[in-house]
C-alpha cells in the first residue's frame, strides 16, 4: 500500500503544534525544515481502510493549512 510524501504548511505560528499533531499519528513521519514554515510529511499505510482513516485524521488537524503532495509510491507487498 502507498507511501506518500507531502509538504505540510502550518497556519501562521502553528508549526510546533502541527509537528506535534502529525508525530502523534502512527502512520506519519515528520521532517520539519529548520528555517522555513514547512514540514515534510511521509505517510505509510498498509490497508485501504488505514489510508482512508489517515486521510480523515489529517483533515481534522486544526494547525494544518495545506498539504501539498510531492510523491506517491504504490508498493504492493509482493
Amino acid at each position, binding site marked *: 500500500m502507498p507511501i506518500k510524501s507531502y509538504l505540510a504548511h502550518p497556519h501562521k505560528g502553528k508549526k510546533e503544534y502541527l509537528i506535534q499533531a502529525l508525530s502523534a499519528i502512527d502512520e506519519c513521519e515528520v521532517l520539519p525544515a529548520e528555517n522555513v514554515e514547512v514540514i515534510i510529511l511521509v505517510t505509510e499505510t498498509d490497508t485501504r481502510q488505514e489510508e482512508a482513516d489517515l486521510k480523515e485524521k489529517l483533515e481534522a488537524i486544526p494547525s494544518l493549512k495545506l498539504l*501539498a503532495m*510531492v510523491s506517491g509510491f504504490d508498493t504492493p507487498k509482493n
Partner: protein
Amino acid sequence: MYRSLYTNRRSFIKKMAVLSAMTAAAGMFPGIVFAEEQERGIPTDANLDWKKAPCRFCGVGCGVLVGTENGRAVAVKGDPKSPVNKGLCCVKGYHSIMALYGKDRLTKPLVKKNGTYVETSMEEALDLVASKMKETIADHGKDAVSIYGSGQWTIPDGYVASKLFKGCIGTNNVEANARLCMATAVTGFLTSFGLDEPMGCYEDIDHANTFVLWGNNMAEMHPVLFSRLLDQRLRRGAKIIDFATRTTRTSMAADKSILFNPQTDLAVANAICHEIVNNGWVNTEFVKEHCNFSKGLTQMGYGLEDHYKFTDKPESITFEDYKAFLADYAPEKVARLAGVSVKDIKYLAAHFGDPNKKVMSLWCMGMNQHSRGTWINNLVYNIHLLTGKISSPGNSPFSLTGQPSACGTVREVGTLTHKLPHGVVMNKEHREFAAKIWGVPVENIPAKPTYHTVEMFRALDRGDIRFMWIQVTNPMVTMPKLKRYRDGAKKEGRFIVVSDIYPTPTTDIADVILPSAMWIEREGLYGNSERRTQYFEQMLEPPGEAMSDTWQLVEVAKRLGYEKQFHYGRESHIEEIYNEYRKHHEGKKHNMAPLEVLKSQPGALWPYVDGKSTKWRFNAKYDPACSNGKDFHFYGKKDGKAVIWQRPYEPAAEEPDSEYPFWLGTGRVVEHWHTGSMTRRIPVLHQAMPHSYVELNPGDAKRMQIRTGDKVRLTTRRGKIVLPASVNERGVPAPMQVFVPFFDENMLINDITLDSFCPISKEPDYKKCAVKVEKA
C-alpha cells in the same frame, strides 16, 4: 527472508519519498535547511524507470515523473524541473496511475446486438463504425454525423478528428466538452483582445502582490497552483482575496473572503471600474495608447429555445460614454443588489487602483459557466486594462482551465464547430489555409458553423443528427437538463459510438463501445492553462485491444476512403501529426515548439520563437510578435488596441421566486475528477467521497430542521432529486443557496439543472437556477 526484503524495500522507498519532498522544498524555498541527520542516508536513485509526463488530470498541467517497474506504473512524483509545479503534485496527480488499473477497464470492443453487448474484435468494430457513418451520410447527409470530444483529448486526437470531419467528410459537426467549461473564456479573450488564451503565465504568481479569485475554489480545484499562492504569501506577504458565492476551503485560507449574490459579479466588476475611474486611478496613458471602448447588444436572452441564434453588434463608444454608463454602478448603488458592502467593494477596487501593487485575477468555472459569461470576462479585463495591469510580470488577468488539454486541444486545435486550427470556418482565407495543409479541396470545409454542444444534443434529440461519436467524455452525466438529451440519444434511428476506458452512463447509451488507451499507454501531447505544450511518451502497453483515440480515428478515416490524408505510420504517427499541426500555427504569434524540444524539457509556452517561450504576450519586451514600436501591442485586433467593453448587469435566466425560493449551483470536489469515472474506481478517493450531497446554509438547515445526513428533496421546473444533506462540512453556501457536486452518476443533479447559456459563448450556466428545498 521475505519479511526482511519487504522491510528493506519499504524503507528504501520511504527514503525516496523523503528525497522527492526535499527536492521540491528546495525548489520552492531556495535556501531551505533540514537538520543534517535528516539528510543523511537519503538515496539518490531508485531502481524504477522514471519518465516525465504532464499530469493526466487537471488543466494546471503539472509535470510529473512516473515510475514504472515490470511494465506497471507504480510511483508518481512531481517533476522538480517543471516550472509549473516545481516538484509538487496533488492527490489526484498521484492517483492518476491508479486510474489505469480499475477492475472494470474496458479491454474489448462491445457492440450492441438485440439489446445486449457482445464482444467483438477491434477490426470488426471499426468496420462497423465506418459503415454506419457512410450509411448515415448517404441517407441523411453529411451534417447528420458528428463527433463530440473533450479537453482530455490529446492534441493529435483533436487534430485528426477536426481534419476528418471538417476537412474530409465536410461537416462542421465537431464539438468538445470544453464548450461546457472554457468556451466563455475564449469569447472573452476574442472580444477583448482578438486572440485566445492568457497573455501571462504562472510565473506571474511569483510577482503579484494581490491575488483576486473570482468565484474560483483554487484550494480544491487547482491545489498545486494554490499552494504556490500560499508560498508567495509566506515569502512576500502577498494577499489572497476570495470573491465568491459560497464559503469554501479557499475562503478559509484566504486573507479576505467576500461573498456576493449569484450573477451580481457583473455589477461589482462595474462598481470596481466606477471607483477606478472616479478616484483617478486610470492609467491614462496606457488607455489612450492601447484601448478602445465599445458596447454591444443587451437583453440577449438565454438560449432556452431550440434553434436560438445571437450575433452581437459591437458599436464604438467614447470614454465619456463609458463613464456615464458607470454612473449607475456606484458602490452605494450596487451594494444592496450584490450583497457586498460598500467598504468591501472599495477595498477590492483599491487593490486594483494602487499603482504600487501588482494584481493577478484568477477565475475558472464561476465566471465561465455564467449566462453572461463573456460579459463578466470582459469586465475583469476592463479592470486590468483601465489600470494598465496586464501583460507584464505579476499583472495578469488569468483564466484557468479544468482539463489537461482544454487549451491545447479544444482551443488551439480548434475542435469547436466554428473553429479551424488557425482561425475560423467563416473566413475564406482560413479555410483555404487549412485545406492546403490537410490536402483537401477548400470546398470541403463548409463556411457556416453548425451546432454548438447544447444545440448538437438537441439536434440528436430532434433527429437532425443521426450518428454521434463521443470520445473521452461523459455527457450523460454532464449535460444540463440531462433527461431531455438522454432520452433523445436513446431514440430509434440514432447510432452512438463511445470511446472510453471505463463503463459510464454514456457507454450505457452506446451502440458501439471502443476501449481506449489511457494517457501514458500511448504517446501524446497536452496543452495547459498557461499556453504550455507538453509531450509524453508511451510508457505502458494498453490492456487488451485498447487503442488510442487518435489511431481509432485514423483507422476509421482510412476505411472511409481518406487514405491519402491519413497516411501516417503506426509507429511514427504522433510525430507526423504534430509536425503537420505545427504548420497551422507558423509565425511569431503562435509558433509551436518542435517535438524534439518538447521531448527534452517539461514543455514550452507558445508562441515559441527563436528557441524561446514567450512568457508575456502583447508586451514588446517579451513578445517578438509586437511590431507597432510601442511598449504594448494587442495585435489580435486590427488597430492593435484592446477593447474596454460596456457590459451591464442583467439577471440570470431563472432566479429564485416564491415557488422555487433557493439558488442551486453545482460544481466539483477535490477527490473526484469531473464525473468520477476514473476517480470513483480509486478506493481511497471513493471512500473519502462515496456519493454526492447537498450543502445547505446552517441557518436554513436549522430552520428546516435538517441535519447532516438527512434526506433532502430538491425540485426544479425540470424534475426532482433526493440527496443527503451536508451542513457545516466542507463548503458553506450563503443563506437561500444550495450547492451540489455533479460527480455522482447515481445522483444525477444535471437531471434538474437548466440549459440556459451565454448567448455569445453558448456555454451553459451550471451555477444558477431556482430550486425548492424540502426535508424528504
